């Protein structure tokens, strides 16, 4: 891997060459990553994989025309020719008055908080330690139940570092690490071979929880045995924290400047208006210490700031990048999310369940989609049928459906069980009057 100074030097050289070759504005990013993946299956190493990759990408603005290119070939002479060809090809495009680098006043400058997202020690963990960790996860479950058909466990770590330089004054670097341990267990049942997974994820090796992963995966797989569908109808629904972010993705897509402009958003013109029930508050917070999505600047170099997205159900802000900001006549905020933090309630998942008269706990989604323009959605689900606060049986082969414009008003309560190892910090969610289809 190149060190940060080498990356800056390469970017500077490429920018200089691009400007000399006729580009008016240029942005260059240089990124590299190394990762290790170890998979154990039924107590034997299934695969060991080492990855090392590098990439240089360049955004070119010439004659009010725009293009973006990337390559993993770092030879300077080749890069120079690459840039020359890229500039020449850009000239064939139609002009677009909205294309330019961000205004320098929006860039991140020095002095941001320390994010705590890089763990140098991951590099000194040896291969044997990693293999042993994955084996321990395996040993928690292998042979522990006669219904087990197959167990796999894995260890993964990665270390990434990148820099970005623009021709109008931005320079920034970032480094991030990550480490994961996980297990997947498949068991025998009367009707199939249910499987379930569990994993733990952290930015720092020492903070990673290394116990209980295999056990949880086995427990979840066994509980899923022999599911049944229930009748179609309106139900109370709890969505488990681990999968709740799936329901947010259509909301997020609809908040993007590109979706607003291309009319693939159901949130056009909704700023300042209620889009969800008053219990929902979500804040984009880039500076959380050791947050999976923490950052000082986004991929355009825009200074990252904390801002409410939805406050007590009212839509406060979109995700607008420089280009679509200009096209929409809106102020650029950032074209992507950092950490999205939900205001939590007071009860945990068990307490929410205990209060449920009749409903479904959703623990997984399968397929489905949402029409961005209209907000109509339908997703396959799996989980458990609940009566009087108790699990009656697992359910599968059912859909949850509705329209995003009204669905979020059915949100009654958020749990207090936020998972902090994800950039979407969302707890379990309780909805009422949700359409489920089954029999």
């Amino acid at each position: 891997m190149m060190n940060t100074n080498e990356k800056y030097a390469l970017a500077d050289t490429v920018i200089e060459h691009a400007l000399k070759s006729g580009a008016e504005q240029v942005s260059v990013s240089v990124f590299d990553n190394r990762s290790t993946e170890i998979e154990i299956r039924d107590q034997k190493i299934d695969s060991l994989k080492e990855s090392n990759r590098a990439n240089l990408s360049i955004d070119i603005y010439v004659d009010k025309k725009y293009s973006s290119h990337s390559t993993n070939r770092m030879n300077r002479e080749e890069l120079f020719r690459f840039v020359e060809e890229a500039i020449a090809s850009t000239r064939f495009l139609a002009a677009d008055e909205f294309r330019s680098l961000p205004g320098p006043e929006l860039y991140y400058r020095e002095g941001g908080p320390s994010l705590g997202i890089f763990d140098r020690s991951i590099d000194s963990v040896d291969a044997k330690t990693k293999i042993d960790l994955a084996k321990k996860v395996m040993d928690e479950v292998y042979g522990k139940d006669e219904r087990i058909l197959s167990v796999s466990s894995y260890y993964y770590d990665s270390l990434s570092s990148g820099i970005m330089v623009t021709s109008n004054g931005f320079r920034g670097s970032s480094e991030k690490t990550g480490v994961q341990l996980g297990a997947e267990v498949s068991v025998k049942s009367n009707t199939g071979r249910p499987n379930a997974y569990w994993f733990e994820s952290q930015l720092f090796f020492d903070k990673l929880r290394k116990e209980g992963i295999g056990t949880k995966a086995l427990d979840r797989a066994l509980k899923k045995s022999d599911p049944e569908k229930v009748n179609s109808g309106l139900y109370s629904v709890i969505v488990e924290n681990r999968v709740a972010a799936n329901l947010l993705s259509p909301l997020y897509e609809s908040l993007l400047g590109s979706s607003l402009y291309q009319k693939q958003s159901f949130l056009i013109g909704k700023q300042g208006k209620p889009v969800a029930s008053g219990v929902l508050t979500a804040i984009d917070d880039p500076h959380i210490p050791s947050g999976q999505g923490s950052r000082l600047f986004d991929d355009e170099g825009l200074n990252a700031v904390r801002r409410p997205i939805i406050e007590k159900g009212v839509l406060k802000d979109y995700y607008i990048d420089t280009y679509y900001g200009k096209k929409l006549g809106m102020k650029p905020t950032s074209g992507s999310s950092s950490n999205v933090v939900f205001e939590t309630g007071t009860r945990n998942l068990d307490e929410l369940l205990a209060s449920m008269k009749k409903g479904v706990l959703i623990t997984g989604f399968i397929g489905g989609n949402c029409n961005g323009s209209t907000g109509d959605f339908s997703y396959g689900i799996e989980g458990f049928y609940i009566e009087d606060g108790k699990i009656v049986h697992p359910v599968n082969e059912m859909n949850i459906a509705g329209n995003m414009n009204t669905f979020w008003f059915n949100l009654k309560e958020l749990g207090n069980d936020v998972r902090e190892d994800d950039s979407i910090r969302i707890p379990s969610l309780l909805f009422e009057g949700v359409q489920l289809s089954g029999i």
Partner: protein
Amino acid sequence: MQLKRRDFIKISGITTAGSLVIPPFLNSCKAVKLSADAESYLSHFEVTRATLQKVISAAMEKGADYADLFFEHTLSNTCALEDNKVNSAYSNISSGVGIRVLKGDQTGYAYSEDLTEEAMLKAARTASNIAESPGKFSVANITEYVKPNYYAIRGSWEDTSIKDKIPYMQRMNDNIFAADNRVTMVNVYLNDNSSYILFHNSDGLLAWDYRPIIVIAGVCIMEDKGSTENFYVTRSYRMGPDFLTNELIDELSTEVVDRTSRLFSAVRPEPGEMEIVMGAGQSGILLHEAMGHAFEADFNRKNLSIFCDKMGQKIAEDFVTIIDDGTIPMNRGSLNFDDEGNPTEKTFLVSNGKLTSYLHDRISSDFYKVPSTGNGRRQSFRHIPMPRMRSTYMENGPHKKDEIIASVKKGIYVDYFSNGEVNIGQGDFTFFVKFGYLIENGKLTKPVKDINIIGNGPQALADIVMVADDKAIDNGGGMCGKNGQSVPVTMGMPTVKIRKLTVG
């Protein structure tokens, strides 16, 4: 086709269209007995036969059973149209070698983006660690793979200028706006990929391929009385620039306008279980999700698939025959050899209702002691190959489309989809319907849209009660995802009726 030497950095758009690639015939007069084609690929990656053999030997030095090297150089170009003009372009260049080492069913894998001998040897030694006891390996004689030619192309995308692509994209935009005054937004995307592949393994096999792929996509937005609808169409082949014709553009424009305009009157059906008629073509997504993945041999070898104890058994009606084919000319899922150097073929998964084959890669074919079916695929040189589908379709059956629709009292007819998913162990699968019709008393009535259909694979297969004689392969730009890897696939089907699935 043969290559220009070392032209790793070509960005589409510089040269004028149609300029021919001049074959280099480098080294062809040396004493080595490799074909000029083989030599041109070696020189493209700046490697020699001796280097290949050294790297393979390093990969085998800890006593592995097998090793292979997968060299890849891929150039990708995308142009995008928005606001009536082609005003942005994107390109990517990616090259490197993936080194895989097998010991039994265990895999060691490393890749290098640096193609110097030193860097490749380092990656080979890393991958070799999967084996633990030094063994003896003697270099095998090189055998050249004699490849078929499933995607012969004229010209190449690298030599096609952006300015020669623009008029077609512009034509689609103009067609769509002209066709209906409710159109308020059009986006058109054109993506071409050219991959150079060189493969060598410890058995001495040397294979090479040039794999083009092209996708065009058009998105149409219409607004009518305060409501907004969107639809998109895609087309994709392993073809060169002759893919782009006015006829194709006109056909796609008409299709997307027609479908978008019908959405305004579309409804969402009452949820619940009902009879489903799946129209010819894209409905092959049923085969892909409900059966195809569960037939992938790795899931069966590992005891994970709901089909793993069903080989040789009757799992569908006699008139159901399902194929996965890697040999259809110019099809997006076709390959002259798979990513493990094995020939591709037309594989019968279900023959007359009986499960006859899984989809195999090298590891699973060793495990099951059957020949590989040529389904070992990988996203790129950075990825470990595994069993993947190519083009998955059902053969014609004895019924007629009209007869099938007429047989349904209350159900839905579906023929456009956006995505699907399957749970291998329970067999539950879904597919998302972008467009279809209600069937009431044997007739198509109101359009329907945006519904997820969910069912159980083995049950749905057994519930295919009618199959028509109108098989069609859908040549959309489908990507199949598995374990974090995406590969291009297609699917196809005649019109079929399924006894019941859950609509919601």
